[in-house]
């Protein structure tokens, strides 16, 4: 069984390094069919402790990060809001993930986002830069200039055939660390929607084509090795920018399958005062139907825990 595990990781590792972002991977990702570990870890508790426990439950960060690799952590730090607004990822979750990566021997850890508001303000207000200040090898960067982006093709794209993504994700292990929040165009903004923080032009998603199709297109080329949803707080309305109704689910939901993580995340709080399932979120349904992940929570093997 242990050998099995390692095999999967190596295959993923090769995919990540040799092919950059796994482009054009058809059908179900094989981690869904082969994984012995839980599909999802759902841990209740304080941000840092719950994050560490969730990583353990998935078999340890070593499954995803190998010695000498470069890791890109993609939190949501797009808004110049303090953590209590739940518009951005909790700094302690980011720190816990970064710390784990360092312990796994990561060469360097880049915490990156293409922020909506001025970079300086976002770095300051979200608290993420301060939280990572004393961690050698961890760099918190908000990038707002086109020169840091590079165009890649989207072979399976329905509405997008090419997109400019942050260069740094092309040769790194990508760990997505979104926050759970509502979104007035896509219902919720979790892991998949959060990937829009890695691309240059987002306006066209809102003005030129169906944003839900666009997100699914993006999910075919930007495939985080791991998604850790910070639902320690959840902005149940008023998202994505807030201010909104902040609930406290106190949960960390982690998994390899981004659709599964998001789908579980849809069920944890009522959004805009009503309960929804993953299948009711258009972009998740599209992603599921295009084989990007499992939307039905009942079909997932879930490890729950409390710290």
């Amino acid at each position, binding site marked *: 069984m242990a050998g099995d595990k390692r095999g999967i990781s190596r295959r993923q590792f090769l995919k990540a390094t040799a092919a950059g972002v796994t482009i054009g991977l058809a059908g179900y990702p094989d981690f869904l069919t082969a994984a012995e570990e839980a599909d999802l870890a759902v841990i209740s508790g304080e941000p840092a402790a719950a994050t560490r426990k969730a990583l353990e439950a998935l078999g340890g960060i070593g499954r995803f990060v190998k010695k000498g690799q470069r890791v890109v952590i993609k939190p949501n730090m797009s808004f110049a809001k303090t953590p209590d607004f739940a518009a951005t990822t909790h700094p302690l979750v980011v720190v816990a993930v970064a710390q784990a990566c360092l312990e796994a021997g990561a060469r360097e850890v880049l915490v990156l986002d293409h922020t909506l508001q001025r970079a300086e303000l976002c770095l300051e207000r979200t608290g993420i830069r301060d939280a990572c200040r004393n961690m050698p090898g961890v760099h918190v960067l908000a990038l707002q200039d086109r020169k840091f982006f590079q165009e890649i093709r989207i072979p399976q794209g329905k509405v997008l055939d090419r997109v400019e993504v942050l260069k740094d994700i092309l040769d790194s292990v990508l760990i997505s660390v979104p926050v759970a929040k509502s979104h007035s*165009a896509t219902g919720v903004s979790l892991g998949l929607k959060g990937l829009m923080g890695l691309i240059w032009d987002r306006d066209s998603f809102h003005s030129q084509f169906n944003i839900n199709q666009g997100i699914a297109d993006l999910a075919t080329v930007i495939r985080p090795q791991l998604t850790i949803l910070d639902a320690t707080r959840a902005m149940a309305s008023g998202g994505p920018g807030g201010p909104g109704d902040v609930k406290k689910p106190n949960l960390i939901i982690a998994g390899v399958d981004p659709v599964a993580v998001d789908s579980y995340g849809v069920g944890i709080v009522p959004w805009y005062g009503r309960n929804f399932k993953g299948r009711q979120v258009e972009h998740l349904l599209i992603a599921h139907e295009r084989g990007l992940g499992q939307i039905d929570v009942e079909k997932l093997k879930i490890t729950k825990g409390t710290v």
Partner: protein
Amino acid sequence: MRKTIQALSLLLFTAFFLLATYRLPDWLPADIYLRLDPLLGINAVIASREFIARVLWSLLLVGATLAVGRFFCAYVCPLGASIDFLDFPFFRKVRRGDLKTDSRLRRWKYFLLIVIIAAAVAGVSLAYLIDPIALLTRFYTLVLYPLTIAVVNLLLDLLRPLSQGLGWVGLAHLHYPQPVYYMTALTLVIFGAVIALNRLAPRFWCRYLCPLGALLSLISPLGVFKRRVNEECNRCMACQKACPMGAIPEDPLKTRGPECIQCRECAGTCPQKAISFPVSFSGIGEYSRFDLSRRGLFTSLAGGLTFGFIAIQNPFTLLQGRRQLIRPPGALPETEFLRTCIRCGECMKSCVTNTLQPCLWESGMTGLWTPKLEPRMAACEPNCNVCGKVCPTQAIRSLSLEEKTYARIGTAVLRKETCLVWAQNKMCLICDEICPYNAIVFRPVEGYRRPVVVASRCNGCGYCEQRCPVKGESAIVVMTDGEIRLKEGSYIAEAKKLNLEFKPDPGDDKFVIEESGFKVDQEKQKEEKLPPTEEPAPQKPKGFL
């Protein structure tokens, strides 16, 4: 020695200029050079007919000049230093003889001073145009600063392959947002002219034009240090040639008191070592009286008043407040604002989003270089209140972050005819997404959820206008309607009086459910159909309860 002090002063000026930026600590007066300038202070006080506390700082310079003399021009003035330092590369090889018109030109600075004061009496702020500190700060903001950032970014780009190769992650990703401004060219031309005039005579600007120099020279003869030439003098006239201010007349034993800036170039040059600057309490020498002709005095006085009349008595004044010109948060009411603002550009430099831009003709002759917001380009950031902090005359009041939130600069107005949602049924929400005050809500109208501005929650920051994806003019624009501009008193109290609340009120967004990415079962949807909220409530005539 003098060059060193000058260089230090210019450096200090530059340092304070650079410090005028987001997260400026409250205690740090980044606008200190401007505050020390008595001309800007007097001009603002007279023009606005208001007491301005920050202007009291200029008494420091007035006091020092009274005590010591006109040392400011030689040692402190950053424009003087710039002129001196640029003299070397540009004009070092130029032979500059005496200007025949020297004594007549010399009066010009006094005439200009009179014009400025007269215009201020008429209610027009004019000092900004030629006050050295305002002029240089403006040049720094609109020309030098953007240029510097561009050069720094270019160097970073050149270094990038190296920093990437060496794994210097921070440096490899470093990039400074490029500030851009209107009026850069015009500002450069004016500064260029000030420097170019040196071709005619050293420190041409300081000798003949600078109104601050004129003001200081009026009180400088009382200073204790005075030039003295002893009997060793052999009238070689070397000192006269060396004097950058032309303060030494045909008789080298004498000194034109008001013109002397105590740079001591003469003492350094004198082959006989006959010149010293001892402490002296004696009165003012014969060359110290001001020989302004009566005609010149009268003409400049009339000129200033006439300018004031022309600048004020025109349609621009009547149309003040009816124009689409968004002023910075905390700006005084328009008339007072125009009279108080000294167009130094500190607010534009410090603006974290670069939305503050200088006006050209938008509010007429009295509004040149005044700051306005350009929301289509950038918004006013809710977490920033630096523009008021660095305003030396408090034309933009320095407000706490909380109070600044209530200093409403306008109201967003949605243009349904171009809005993607209203006009084309597209699923756009960017204005709502970015609005920091949740002032945009969605209402179900004709089967779609559509954005609506809740005016009582909008403080005009302009994020919506900036981010609207409609090409060309934004489908949601900030209009001056509803702006709050107070000369004094609390913005918070005023906003509360008007029932404005720029705080979270998330409950209203429940209308978003339909058509918002959630697939609601058709049957259920019918059951739970939300009542259309824009259905007109039965209205009673105004005044009835």
